[in-house]
């Protein structure tokens, strides 16, 4: 089963888990399974219209899925899908 690795800022919405087994033949199905398992993630990943939010970066292995077939990209059993977050910290208090 493919594994989806969640970044730290999204883990509170998935019971603190960092890696979640997801079912799906492609990225879209895997994401749907993810938000079915953890509905609180829905609004962080998808717009009200149901499209993936533009700041959500999905990488399959080393590659940005935008440079593959987007959410249609097919997944294999042992694939690792990773959400890469925008984090801003670095300086002050």
């Amino acid at each position, binding site marked *: 089963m493919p594994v989806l690795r969640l970044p730290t800022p999204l883990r509170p919405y998935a019971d603190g888990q960092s890696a979640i087994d997801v079912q799906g033949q492609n990225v879209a199905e895997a994401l749907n399974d993810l938000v079915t398992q953890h509905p609180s993630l829905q609004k962080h990943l998808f717009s009200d219209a149901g499209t993936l939010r533009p*700041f959500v970066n999905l990488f399959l292995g*080393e590659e940005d899925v935008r440079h593959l077939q987007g959410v249609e990209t097919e997944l294999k059993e042992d694939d690792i899908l*990773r959400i890469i977050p925008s*984090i801003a910290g*670095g300086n002050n208090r």
Partner: protein
Amino acid sequence: MKLSHDEIFRYSRHLLIPEVGLEGQEKLKAAAVLVIGTGGLGSPVALYLAAAGIGRIGLVDYDVVDFSNLQRQVIHGEATLGKLKVESARARMLDINPDIQVDVYNEMFTSENAFRIAEPYDLIIDGTDNFPTRYLTNDLCVLTGKPNVYGSIYRFDGQASVFNADDDSPCYRCLFPEPPPPGLVPSCAEGGVLGILPGTIGTIQATEAIKLILGIGETLSGKLLLYNALDMSFDFVRLRKNPKCKVCGENPDVTELIDYEQFCGMPANDHDAGSAGDEWDISALELKARLDAGEALHLIDVREPHELAISQLPNANLIPLGQLAARMHELDSAEEIVLFCKIGTRSVRALEVLVSAGFRKIKNLDGGINAWAEEVDPSLPIY
């Protein structure tokens, strides 16, 4: 730029490396680097660039050294508490290396001053703490053709890359075309950060800067480093230039600096105490008065469970922000609810969640439990 005999002795360990040598050290001396932010990331960056002999280093920061900075901002110390960060950093850098020039800019980095400040420098190191300044730094680097050495941290996670190193090099917006909505990504002030993490990421940024100046090795251009201190994992993903990028793409929309606070929908700092606006806010003193008068207020603490060990308000119920949507049924919209967190930013998000669910009798404790500790109950610590 020739080295003096003293400098040759000072940098002898560099001169012995064939990839650096006398010629390389002279390049470092001739180089000018601008460091945005003298906090967690800026501290190791500035220390190591000074020690390495970068001839001219600019520092931009508008803050003063705070006690809670010292857990990670190792360029500052107790002796400089309350002093300007740029002055505190300059003094330490010149103590390490009096042969360099350190320019200080005690101002916020903004669209108005960014071109003027950056003009003399060859490359820029992004050590900021907020999205507006990151997008500003990126766009400035693209518009002026300067490399942007990027680093960012959160809790145990770090990222680093080199953007805009050359024509084929992606920029920050190629990866993150737009910022996340306000409140989705907590700041380090709310979420915390391992004190050593900026040391790891900042030294990587300093390393990349030196390599860019010397023209040696393989930099992080076109790659994003993802570091996790808990797993001690260093992963890399490939970044590509986005032909549709709004600033570095083929038909850019952004051809001058814009209003980045408006673009990101958030202020350009990470430590404004949370305020939801007059209509929704309640001050610590007002809350105290109303509780003392016996009013029935339902206090909801939206912090994480481990924060209860630091400070608590009596008779408050804990519902961490991440669980609020799922546990809303525990709340009665007919009751008056007061939400609070550490400084008021998470509780503002919680308030937005509840308001959009139809709650109206709801208040945000302005400044959070830290404001309560400061104004009402000094027996509580501030964190």
